[in-house]
C-alpha cells in the first residue's frame, strides 16, 4: 500500500463529482458507482466498487463483446486448431492476426495462426438458416487441412436465427473423425469480453481437458491465463525449465490441442490472468484435485514471489534450492539490465486502463522502475479482480450475466488425486498461497483513484487535470492520449514488442518505457508560432 500524490492541486473527490456532473442524472448515478477514491487501512479494505455491469448505451467505452473474449482471447491462440467463425465476415476478419498470441508449430508442423476461417454468412443464410453451410464449411476445413481439432464460434445473428451449432458440431465430428467444439458466444451475451471467457472455459473443460491420461513427473505444472503475447510464455517457460519444473501446458498461449487433452495430469496450476481463466482453475481443482495459486509474472519481484509459491507448494528441499539459485541469478541479471533506464523514469506518474488483469499486474514492475501508478481500472473485470476473491459470495449476478452457464463439477471418482495432502493444502490456503487473489485493492492504497470501464470523456479529463507522464491502455485510446502530447503504452499488444514477462521481459519493458517517455520527438509537439501575434503595418504615402 502506498501514499500517492496525484497532481498536488487535484482533489480526487471533487474531481469525481465534477466528471459525474457531465452525465445525464441516471447515467451519472450509474457511473459514480464505478469510481472509487481509495482510502487507507481498514476503511480501504472494506471499499467496494461496481464492475461487470452493462455499459450505458452511448458511452464511448473500451469494451468489446462476448465473441472477442471467446474466440479472440481464449480459443484463438490454440494454434493447431482451425477456428471457424460462423457469421458475417466482419467478426472473423477483425480477429485475424490482430492479437499477438504467438505460436510455434510442434513436430506435426500444424500452425493455422496466419489463417482466418469464416462461413461469411449472407442474407440468404440469415433468412433460411446457416446450419448446412456450417456443416459444409467444417467438411471443407477437415478435407483441406486435417487439423488437430476444429472450433466453431457463433456471432450475433446465429442465436437469433436458431442455428444449432452444437448439433452440427456433433454430426461433423462423427463424419470427419476430427474433434469439433462449438461455442455459443454471440456478441450480445453478457456485457463484455468476460462472458466469452467463461463460455470458452466451460467448453474446454467439458470437451478437451481430461481426455488423455498420462502420468507426469513430480514437478509438473500448468500455466493458466497466459496468452504468450510477444513471447511472454516462452520467457516464463525458460525460467521454469531452468528450475527443472515441467510446464505441461499453457492455457492458451502457444497451446496445442493435444496438450489440452492431458493437462489434467499436472500437479499444480498457476493462474496469471485471473479474470479469463479462474473458471478453469476452479473446475480442474474440483474434478481432478489440482490446487491453484494466483501468480504474477510481470517484474522481477513478482516473478520471484510467484516462483516461491511453487517452491512452497512442492515443499521439496532440492527443488527449493534450485529455485532460489535461479531467482538469485535471474534477478541480478534483470537488475543489471534495468539499471541504465532508472534515471530517466524516476518519479514518473502512470495510469493504467486495460483489460481484466494487466491494469493490476503491471503496477509492481512500474514501482520497481521508480514510477508511481496513480489511477487505474479494468475494462471488463469483476468485483473480485478489484476487491479480492473473498467478496465473491457477495457478488450479485445480474440479468445480463445470469444466462452464462455455471458448470456443476464433481470430483472424478478415479482421477481426483491432489498432489499434496489436505492438511498442507489448507495451511497454504490460509497463508494466502493457494486459491487466493487479493485483487487490485492490494496494490492501490490511499490517495489513488480507481475507475472501472473508463469512458472517453473521463480519460480526457484525467489527462488534462492530472497531467500523467504515461497512460497505459489499448489501441483505441493510444492515439487519443498521444494527441495530448502524452506517451501511451499499449498493454494489450505491447506496441508490437515484448516479451515483457519474466526476468528478461522486464528488461525489455524498462527499455521500451524509457524509449517511449524520453524520445526527444515529444519535445517537438508544441507548434512554435501558434500564439505569436503579428503586427502588419504600412506607412501611408
Amino acid at each position, binding site marked *: 500500500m502506498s501514499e500517492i500524490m496525484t497532481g498536488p492541486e487535484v482533489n480526487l473527490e471533487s474531481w469525481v463529482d465534477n466528471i459525474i456532473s457531465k452525465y445525464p442524472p441516471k447515467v451519472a448515478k450509474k457511473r459514480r458507482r464505478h469510481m472509487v477514491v481509495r482510502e487507507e487501512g481498514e476503511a480501504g479494505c472494506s471499499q467496494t466498487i461496481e464492475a461487470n455491469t452493462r455499459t450505458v448505451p452511448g458511452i464511448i467505452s473500451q469494451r468489446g463483446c462476448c465473441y472477442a473474449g471467446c474466440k479472440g482471447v481464449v480459443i484463438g491462440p490454440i494454434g493447431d486448431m482451425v477456428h471457424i467463425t460462423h457469421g458475417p465476415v466482419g467478426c472473423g476478419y477483425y480477429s*485475424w492476426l490482430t492479437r499477438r498470441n504467438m505460436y510455434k508449430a510442434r513436430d506435426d508442423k500444424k*500452425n493455422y495462426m496466419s489463417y482466418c476461417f469464416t462461413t461469411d454468412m449472407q442474407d440468404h443464410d440469415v433468412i433460411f438458416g446457416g446450419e448446412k453451410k456450417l456443416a459444409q464449411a467444417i467438411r*471443407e476445413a477437415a478435407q483441406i487441412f486435417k487439423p488437430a481439432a476444429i472450433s466453431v464460434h457463433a456471432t450475433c*445473428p446465429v442465436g437469433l436465427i436458431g442455428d444449432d451449432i452444437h448439433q452440427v458440431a456433433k454430426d461433423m465430428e462423427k463424419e470427419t473423425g476430427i474433434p469439433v467444439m462449438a461455442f455459443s458466444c454471440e456478441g450480445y451475451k453478457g456485457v463484455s469480453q468476460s462472458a466469452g471467457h467463461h463460455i470458452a472455459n466451460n467448453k474446454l473443460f467439458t470437451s478437451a481437458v481430461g481426455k488423455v491420461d498420462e502420468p507426469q513427473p513430480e514437478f509438473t505444472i500448468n500455466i493458466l491465463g497466459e496468452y504468450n503475447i510477444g513471447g511472454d510464455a516462452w520467457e516464463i517457460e525458460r525460467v521454469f525449465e531452468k528450475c527443472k519444473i515441467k510446464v505441461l501446458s499453457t492455457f492458451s498461449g502457444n497451446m496445442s490441442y493435444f496438450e489440452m487433452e492431458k493437462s489434467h495430469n499436472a500437479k499444480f496450476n498457476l493462474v496469471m490472468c485471473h479474470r479469463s481463466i479462474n473458471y478453469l482453475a476452479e473446475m480442474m481443482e474440483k474434478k481432478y484435485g489440482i490446487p491453484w495459486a494466483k501468480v504474477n509474472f510481470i517484474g522481477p519481484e513478482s516473478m520471484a514471489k510467484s516462483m516461491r509459491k511453487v517452491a512452497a507448494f512442492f515443499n521439496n528441499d532440492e527443488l527449493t534450492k534450485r529455485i532460489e539459485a535461479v531467482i538469485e541469478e535471474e534477478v541480478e541479471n534483470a537488475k543489471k539490465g534495468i539499471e541504465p533506464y532508472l534515471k530517466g523514469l524516476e518519479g514518473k506518474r502512470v495510469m493504467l486502463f486495460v483489460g481484466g488483469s494487466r491494469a493490476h499486474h503491471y503496477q509492481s514492475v512500474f514501482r520497481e522502475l521508480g514510477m508511481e501508478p496513480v489511477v487505474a481500472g479494468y475494462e471488463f473485470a469483476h468485483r473480485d479482480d478489484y476487491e479480492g476473491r473473498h467478496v465473491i459470495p457477495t457478488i450479485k449476478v445480474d440479468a*445480463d450475466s445470469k444466462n452464462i452457464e455455471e458448470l456443476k463439477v464433481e470430483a472424478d471418482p478415479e482421477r481426483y488425486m491432489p498432489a499434496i495432502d489436505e492438511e498442507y493444502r489448507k495451511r497454504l490456503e490460509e497463508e494466502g498461497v493457494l486459491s487466493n487473489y487479493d485483487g487490485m485493492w492490494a496494490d492501490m492504497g490511499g490517495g489513488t483513484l480507481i475507475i472501472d470501464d473508463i469512458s472517453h470523456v473521463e480519460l480526457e479529463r484525467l489527462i488534462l487535470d492530472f497531467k500523467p507522464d504515461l497512460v497505459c491502455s489499448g489501441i*483505441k485510446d493510444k*492515439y487519443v492520449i498521444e494527441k495530448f502530447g502524452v506517451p501511451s503504452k499499449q498493454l494489450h499488444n505491447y506496441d508490437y514488442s515484448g516479451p515483457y514477462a519474466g526476468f528478461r521481459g522486464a528488461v525489455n519493458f524498462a527499455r521500451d518505457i524509457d524509449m517511449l517517455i524520453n524520445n526527444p520527438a515529444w519535445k517537438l509537439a508544441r507548434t512554435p508560432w501558434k500564439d505569436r501575434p503579428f503586427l502588419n503595418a504600412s506607412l501611408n504615402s
Partner: protein
Amino acid sequence: MLHHTPDEISERHALKINPAKTCQPIGAMYAALGIHGCLPHSHGSQGCCSYHRSHLTRHYKEPVMASTSSFTEGASVFGGGPNLRQSLKTIFQVYEPDIVAVHTTCLSETIGDDLPSIIKGAVEDKTVPEGKHVIYCNTPSYVGSHVTGYSNMAAGIVKCLCEKDETESKRINVIPGFTDPSDMRKIKGMLKEMKADFIMFPDTSGVLDTPQTAEYKMYPDGGAKISDIMRAGGSSLSLCLGRWSSEAAGVELEKKCSVPFKVLDLPIGVLATDRFVEAVSQEMGLPVPKSIRDERGKLVDMLTDYQQYLYKKKVAIFGDPDTVIPMTEFLLSAGMMPKHIITGTPGKAFDKRIDALMKEHGHDYEYNCSNSADLFYLHQLIKKEPVDLLIGNTYGKYIAAEENIPFVRFGFPILDRVGHSHFPKAGYMGGMHFISGVINTLLDKMDRDTPEDMTMELVA
C-alpha cells in the same frame, strides 16, 4: 506461415479463408467521419464498434471516435429502440457533436429495428437538442462488403441532409469513395487548381490525418461542413468517383434534388485521371491549367524513363473494386501484365469492367478475374501461375513472403507501413508516388538478385 495452402485449387462452397473484404458497418463509420463535427454511432453489440474503431485506428494511427448502443441479450429480444434513445441522450449531453450518424449491424438488422421511427421520436421529444442532426443508414453486415456500407452511408447523408434548391449553381458535388484522406486532399487540390467550385463529401482529410500539436480535438478541423452538404442539392452535377462506393449517393441526389450525376473511376492512373480532369473541365467550362498538364507529363515521363522495369511484368492485384479497376488500367497502360485480379466484394460488374479493360488494351493473354474471392484462392492462383509483383493490402504480405514475391501495399487496410494517409495514389502525382514504389521495389529485388560473383548495377 501459409504453408498449409495446397497447390491444388479445390471447390469451396461454404468456407471462406483469408477474406479480401470486411463487413458494411466499418464503411459507414468511415464515411460518417467525413462529416465535420460528426460522431458515428454503431447500433449493435459493443464488439462491432470496438472492432471497427480498432481497425480504422490501426490503418490511420489516429483517434477514431464512435459510440455504440451496447446491445445486451435483452435488447436483442425486445428491440434496441431504448438503447438508441438512451445513446442519443447521452451522446449529445456528454460528447456534444453537431451531428450523429447512425448505422446498423447484423444484430439490429436481424431483429428489424426501425431506425427512422426511433430517431423521429427522439427528435420530436427533444432528446435530440435543437439545431443538432441525426442521420442514419442501414448496413446489414451479411450483404456486400465494407464498400457497400460506405455507399449506404453516403446515400444516407444525401437522403437526410441535402436540400432541394431550384437555383442551379455552376458547381460540382464530388463523392470520393472509400479511399484515403490523401486521395481526397489531392482531388480537392486539383479542383482548386482548375478553379472549380465544388463540394466534396464525405471528406476525411483533416479528420484522419491530423497533426501532433499536443492538443487533442475530439472533432478535428476537417470534414465536410453540414451547411455545404445541405447546399449540394443546388449543384449542377455530381461526380461519383467509384461505382461501388459513390453511385448510390449520386442516384439519391438526382432523385431528391434533381442534380444529374456521372459515375467515374477514382482518378488513379493516367487515363482515369484524364477522365476526371476532362469531366470537370467540360462541366464547369474551365481550361486545364498548365500545372496539371505538366504533372501529367511528369507521370508519363516516369513511365517511359523506367518502362523496361515494368514491361510485361506479371502482376497479381487484390482490393476493393473502385480502386482495383483504375489501378489495373494504370498497370496495363504502363505495359505491365495483370494476371490475377480479384476483389472480395461481390458484383459481376467488376469482372465485366476488367474484361473490358483487357480488351481495350489489346491483351489476349490469359488472366484470372474474380469477384467475391478470398486471399486463399489468390494464393493458389499465384502458386499455379507465379507473378513478378503482388499489389494489395497488408494481408498480402504473408502470400508475398511465402512465395518470395516483391510486394507493394495498396488499398485498405495498410497496417504495417507508413505513408498512405499523406501520400496519395490519386491524381497524376499520386500515380507517380505509386509507380515509383513499384519501380523501386522491383529494382530492390534486381539488386538483391545480383549473383554473388557479379557487381550490382550502379545505374538503373
